[in-house]
């Protein structure tokens, strides 16, 4: 069920009413209702894969209990590895099987060995990367004793299958979601109203910004060979806002929906295109994923490697810099792979690793350079450079294959880059959107306008946004992050 569909517009009020008026007397009943609604929401796409979700959830529930129960550390570790392996195998089978088969065949073909291609039509279960990450997070946190294994199965099933975050995040880790599920929710008027505002803003971002940008992007990426460089630059710009509008719009709707039900989810996007460097960008973009990767991948590998790097310097380079370079490359390689079984995503991830390593090694030089050119007094320049570097990455992310990505970039940096591109209505929407986001950048979301005390004005803004959504919707697209 899409958030921007009639079905969801019917589904949500029904759940809201049942949740607050029928099941409000009992926490158990509320959780049971939410679980039923979540599974209905998921089954609406394809009921067969509901069993996979239940399997993964029950597995995590059981393994977490076992990890907590067994006393020997070795035994705990064995169960942890079992849990992680099964989760990753499920993910690998559904998401990466054909990719690995294809890549191996290509590798052998390059070596002159011809292999017969046998790939299966494996349907990618929607949201699998998200709930597998939640499941991993739950098992690892129990192993690390940050979280106690939950005995109530319904609570665990709900933690891993809560419908607002089920399909595309935020990856709200059980350590913060489970306590909310276990405690009584109280209806807060302000929170609910702001939740509705956030839903409205999310719909605007998705329907007006992302869906309109998608029309331009599809055209430009399909015809890049015959378009001017300036148009391709505009295409990369449009895509940057398509993916941002799409994904952060989804997150806003998810967070707003959860707030209506009395839950507080983490902020997933914090105006990422206003970042002044790539490191900051990753602290503001898909925060739930970057913090997950930091917690469960970057830091553990980094600590482990630090113990192995006993010398202070290697080849004249400080050991901590080598450590960082290796670990950040591994993390972004996996980050790219998490996004999809395609080399374009992997290159996209590695490009960020390159940006960050380059930034590390040129830190002192950059400081001097900035100071001398008084760039530190002009944050806009840093923001623009960061945005351009990010947009370059998005070209790989959007391209169907590496040949298209490189072809696109090659044509972009041609003499025709200095021509005037064709502008569309979408461009003006995006410019207006950037201005609003800039003005609201200290707030949780772009429509957090409770400081406007005059009701008629606030309502007029809501009506205006509804009007824009109804009038200027692009052709309906699925949320991009569903495929991940």
């Amino acid at each position, binding site marked *: 069920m899409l958030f921007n569909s*009639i*079905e969801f517009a*019917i589904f949500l009020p029904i759940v809201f009413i049942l949740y*607050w008026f029928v099941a409000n007397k009992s926490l158990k009943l509320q959780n049971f209702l939410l679980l039923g609604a979540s599974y209905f929401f998921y*089954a*609406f796409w394809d*009921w067969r894969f509901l069993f996979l979700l239940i399997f993964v959830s029950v597995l995590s529930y059981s393994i977490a209990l076992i990890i907590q129960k067994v006393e020997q550390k070795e035994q705990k570790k064995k169960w942890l590895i079992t849990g992680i392996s099964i989760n990753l195998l499920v993910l690998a089978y559904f998401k990466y099987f054909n990719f690995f088969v294809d890549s191996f065949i290509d590798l052998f073909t390059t070596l002159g060995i011809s292999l017969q291609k046998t790939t299966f039509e494996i349907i990618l279960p929607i949201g699998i990367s998200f709930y597998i990450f939640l499941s991993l997070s739950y098992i690892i946190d129990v192993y690390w004793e940050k979280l106690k294994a939950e005995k109530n199965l319904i609570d665990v099933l709900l933690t891993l299958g809560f419908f607002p975050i089920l399909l595309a995040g935020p990856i709200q880790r059980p350590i913060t979601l489970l306590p909310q599920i276990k405690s009584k929710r109280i*209806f807060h*008027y302000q929170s*609910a*109203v702001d939740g509705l505002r956030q839903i409205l803003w999310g719909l605007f971002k998705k329907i007006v910004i992302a869906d309109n940008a998608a029309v331009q992007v599809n055209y430009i990426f399909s015809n890049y060979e015959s378009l001017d460089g300036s148009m391709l630059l505009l295409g990369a710009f449009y895509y940057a806002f398509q993916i941002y509008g799409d994904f952060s719009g989804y997150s806003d709707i998810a967070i707003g929906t959860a707030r209506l039900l009395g839950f507080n989810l983490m902020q997933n996007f914090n105006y990422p295109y206003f970042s002044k460097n790539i490191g900051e960008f990753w602290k503001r973009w898909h925060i739930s994923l970057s913090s997950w990767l930091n917690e469960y991948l970057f830091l553990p590998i980094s600590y482990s490697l630090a113990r192995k790097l006993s010398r202070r310097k290697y080849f004249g380079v400080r050991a901590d810099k080598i450590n960082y370079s290796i670990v950040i490359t591994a993390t972004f390689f996996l980050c790219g792979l998490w996004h999809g079984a395609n080399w374009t995503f992997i290159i996209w991830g590695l490009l960020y690793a390159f940006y960050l390593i380059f930034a590390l090694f040129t830190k002192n030089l950059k400081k001097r350079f900035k100071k001398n050119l008084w760039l530190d007094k002009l944050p806009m320049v840093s923001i623009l450079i960061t945005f351009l570097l990010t947009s370059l990455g998005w070209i790989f992310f959007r391209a169907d294959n590496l040949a298209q990505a490189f072809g696109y970039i090659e044509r972009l940096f041609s003499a025709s880059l200095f021509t005037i591109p064709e502008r569309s209505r979408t461009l003006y929407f995006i410019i207006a959107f950037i201005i609003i986001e800039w003005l609201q950048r200290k707030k949780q979301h772009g429509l957090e306008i409770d400081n406007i005390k005059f009701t008629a004005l606030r*309502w007029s803004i*809501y*009506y205006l946004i*509804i*009007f824009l959504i*109804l*009038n*200027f*919707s692009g052709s309906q697209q699925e949320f991009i992050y569903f495929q991940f």
Partner: protein
Amino acid sequence: MKLFLKKIFLFTIVFGICSVIVGQIYLHNYLKIVFSEEAFRLPENITTVFFGDSHANTTFDPEIIENSFNASVESEIYFTTYSKMIALLKSNPQIKNVVLSHGYHNLSFAYNKDILFSDKYYSLFDQWGKEIIHSAANGQLLEYKYGPFNSFFSRWFAYLEHFVNSTFIRLKYDMGVPVNLTDYLNFYVSILRNNPKLNEFPLYPGNYRSDKSNLEESLTNKFINLHYYIDGEVGSSRIMIESLYRMAETCREYNVNFFLINTPIHSSFKSKIPEYYIKLYDEVLIDLKDKFDNIYYYDFSSVDYPDSLFGDGDHLNSIGMERFSNKIKYLFTE
């Protein structure tokens, strides 16, 4: 919670009232302009009007056939053509000949899916047409539109979505609530710019044309599938057949000649048309001729034209159109 619900209710009510006001203004103007009798008025010298889908679009050239107007639009189904025909005949008493492209595919159930997409012409529909648009009881129509119902939920959501759409159409056209502001806004902008787009009008002349010739088998198979099969099955459309009879009846009422023309198709295409449709077509035609004395039927589906005159297996290209129009240009004056 009470305050929250109260505010939501109030917000919706204000939105509803504003919408109705804007909607009434819109309907008054939009319908007045787009669906007025004036919008359907043709020049006084037009005595022959061509109707139909892409087949009529690529066959009859009004620049060659004197005093004619081609009102056909690609993919237009008989259900829509019927309503358009009434509007045109009402506004143009000078019309003497109505010419309808009548191919084997026009009676196929494969086009039923388009019936529930015909709301653009809702204002033109008579009671019968409106009932069909709103009738969700005809589950088959919904299945054509939404695809096969694989589960209980998909069936009921299709019904629900149809109910919502149907309500929206009633709200929009019967009550004047602006449910699709995009249409209105774009229309007003175009009026302000003094440049309404042609396709906003029901008499928008289609532009399905081809200068090339592509008789590849894959393309032929694609069109054969599109016209005649749903999941490998063949079947007739009760609504399209009913529309055809209603068109004949309308022509009789207005005392005009009703020409049915089976337009030229390539032999390789014709050989692939399922026998079922040819039989159905003949049966319907015999019955029509029995019931109406104002019908003239011409079958050009086996005309022996070279490949270079076909745009694809079942359409002429612009050279073929010119040749064919010259061939039949006196047909309607004799």
